């Protein structure tokens, strides 16, 4: 049994220590907002925060997440930046199929937590690991700028 701190709640899980955090969240805890896309940290659909850092949960073993503060898309809106980002996403109708957007939002929140006025180049750097096959990138960029304005 491992105790995880997920969205501010201590949660005990029974899983092998090599199990990726993604599958613990999705299958064991049924927190299915975090998505499976590639399994190799290539697409970012599984992005969560570990002590405030965006990580690819598909390539983060359970053992590496124990003792750290885990935030997922289900919990990110409880903090101001997360809420502002989700609202900007909704206002600009960023989503299409929506499958990658949990990961996009988690990466965008992590960016804005560190950098309240990101340039386009900052956005390219921070969001380059998040794939959207619907290619909603025009609006992702606009929504990050809009969220930054709301936070200013």
């Amino acid at each position: 049994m491992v105790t995880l701190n997920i969205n501010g709640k201590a949660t005990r899980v029974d899983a092998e220590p090599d199990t990726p955090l993604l599958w613990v969240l999705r299958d064991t805890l049924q927190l299915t907002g975090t998505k499976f896309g590639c399994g190799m940290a290539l697409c970012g659909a599984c992005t969560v925060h570990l002590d405030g850092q965006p990580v690819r949960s598909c390539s983060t073993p359970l053992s590496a997440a124990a003792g750290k503060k885990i935030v997922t898309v289900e919990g990110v809106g409880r903090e101001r930046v997360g809420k502002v980002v989700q609202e900007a996403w909704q206002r600009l109708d960023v989503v299409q199929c929506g499958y990658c957007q949990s990961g996009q939002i988690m990466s965008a929140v992590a960016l804005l937590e560190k950098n309240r006025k990101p340039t386009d180049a900052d956005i390219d750097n921070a969001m380059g690991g998040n794939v959207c096959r619907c290619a909603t990138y025009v609006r992702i960029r606009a929504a990050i700028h809009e969220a930054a304005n709301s936070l200013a």
Partner: protein
Amino acid sequence: MTTIRIENASRRHFLQGAASLTLAIYVPAGQAAGASKKAASAATIEPNAFLRIGQDNSVTVISKHLEMGQGSYTGLATIVAEELDADWSQVRVESAPADAKRYNNLSWGPAQGTGGSTAVGNSWEQLRKAGASARAMLVAAAARKWQVPPAEITVANGVVMHQASGRKASFGELVSAAADEVPPPNVKLKEPKDFKLIGKRIARKDNTDKTTGKAVYTQDIHLPGMLTAVVAHAPRFGAKVKSFDAAKARAVKGVVNVLQIPTGVAVLAKDTWSAKKGRDALTVEWDESAAFKLGSEQILEKYRELAKSPGTVASRTGDADKALSAAAHTLEATYDFPYLAHAAMEPMNCVVQLGKDGCEVWNGDQMQTGDQMALAKLFGLAPEQVRINTLYAGGSFGRRANKDSDYVLEAANIVKANGAGAPVKLVWLREDDMRAGYYRPMFHHRLSAGLDEQGKLVGWRHRLVGQSVLAGSPFAAAIKDGIDPTSVEGAHKLPYAIANMLVDLHTPTDIHVPVLWWRSVGSTHTAFSTECFIDELAHAAKKDPVAWRLSMLGQHPRHAAVLKLAADKAGWGTPLPAGQAGERRGRGVAVHESFKTYVAQVAEVTVKDDGTFRVERIVCAVDCGIAINPDIIRAQVEGSVGLALATVMNGGITLTDGKVDQSNFHDYQPVRIADMPRVEVHIVPSSANPSGIGEPAVPPLAPAVANALAAATGKRARKLPITADMLKA
């Protein structure tokens, strides 16, 4: 912890429940006259249900179409809400159950499904009538209740009003009275000038759930006792399992069963990770006696050889051979296109449960009744015993509309082998999804054309070589005189006035790579070859590419209008700002109609000396008839640009000795945010019935970019993707 929020109309009572909490309103199918089930004695057709109004004042639009990102739920609900005069905030959307009679795609016949950019177009009249009919029933109920003439009653923003007496009621308050009303046989539809929702920017219905992790996709389904299956597939198409050793797989904690199925060996486990570990621990020996073993290079050689001889004629006007031999100048070019994987963000998956009375499916289902029939056949059930819960699809681009129900049947075969009882979620990992086939077919095109002394285009010959998507499928009847229309669409009829034209097709049948439609289907390659070749001819004729095209579009005003609009907005004819040292810049254009929607795009590119390039800006003009939701139209253009750009910049699927070379997003690269150009979208005002927007902005992108690269470098792309070595200074 099992909380599945699935709204599915199949789970609810329809007309039987009219006297209870909800009111189900039926409208006649298509143009046929009919009435609700309540008046069933006089009806000769099955009624359709698209709308439910609750006493809680909710308006639930029942969508017969899948929401896979293109905004169908929002667009369809807008049409109903417009005629109903509902308030947008009270409207929600549910997926319809699989039903070939009530929920068929009117442009397909008796089949339910979403594709060919038809969702809004085929639903337009049907849903307007559904909304208007329901509105009339609410008005009649209010008139009866208030003892006033119906003509004095108005409806706006979900409120029914009688101005003179000051009475008003919400829809919910009128539900029980309206349950006694019979839908009127004829309803008056709104004049476009009175539209309040159509044409406005209104929010997508799925944007809250999709930004908070609440939206439910197939991958998110958890049912009591459910097992997850991961499958070992053959490394080559056509190979079969010869033998397998499951000992190590069974030793993995969490693995509960290992089964041979027609498509490989399935490992069932209590969770996805255990199933994957079990699958990876399997040893499978494959019988490759019937396996397909050619590589892409060998396939291309075959295609080039085939292109030397005449194929089956797809269209013929005048005498192209004669015109070409008499022409003052002739040009010839070939174009090559690789296989393309759809690579939707949600890899294919499907949940199937078999019970005593039938089978239940959870799937982002793009072709509900085709899948329903395939499952019914496999399990020996009647189609109506197969209940399909259509969920959000995490993208598709055509992949989930599988003509052979491939992944759905794989899930069902696992259930069949495992026995009824436990529901099974089949999960394809990214590698499984990338290598399972059903690609946009590889194509080789050969074009030649002739110009007269004045630079007039006098003859056009176009030969295509590529596998048929429809051959051997349930849609094979659409193949007429040896021509699969999906192979030649976009090429066999050109909008340009060309007196002598011949288009022919070779359809090889010895290439056993599964192929399928991919967002915009034939136009993914025909728009490229025709619009690149036209552009090259314009330059050979020493004409401006826009003016020259316009000179030949006299009979096609909608093509001409979008072309002019895109050119104007892009500043066509004005010089591009110069690039930095070592950079060449260029502008290119393309125009193409697909699925009755007309799109022109102007691309601006910057090419470095080393041949690497960047698409800076896309200016797009689109005519898709009445614009239901202009913002979703813009979003679809933006997304289509990004998806198509990956085929220009990054590449496709290749085979070596029959094995797929690519496996994941490192070697099948999508476009990422830094590659995304600025996209400007201009919508042509129109009063024509709406057509689709899910696909038509894909085809012009690649040729517009290739033409811009040619303008910058003088080098014409002859294949996709376009690589840096083709553009070096």
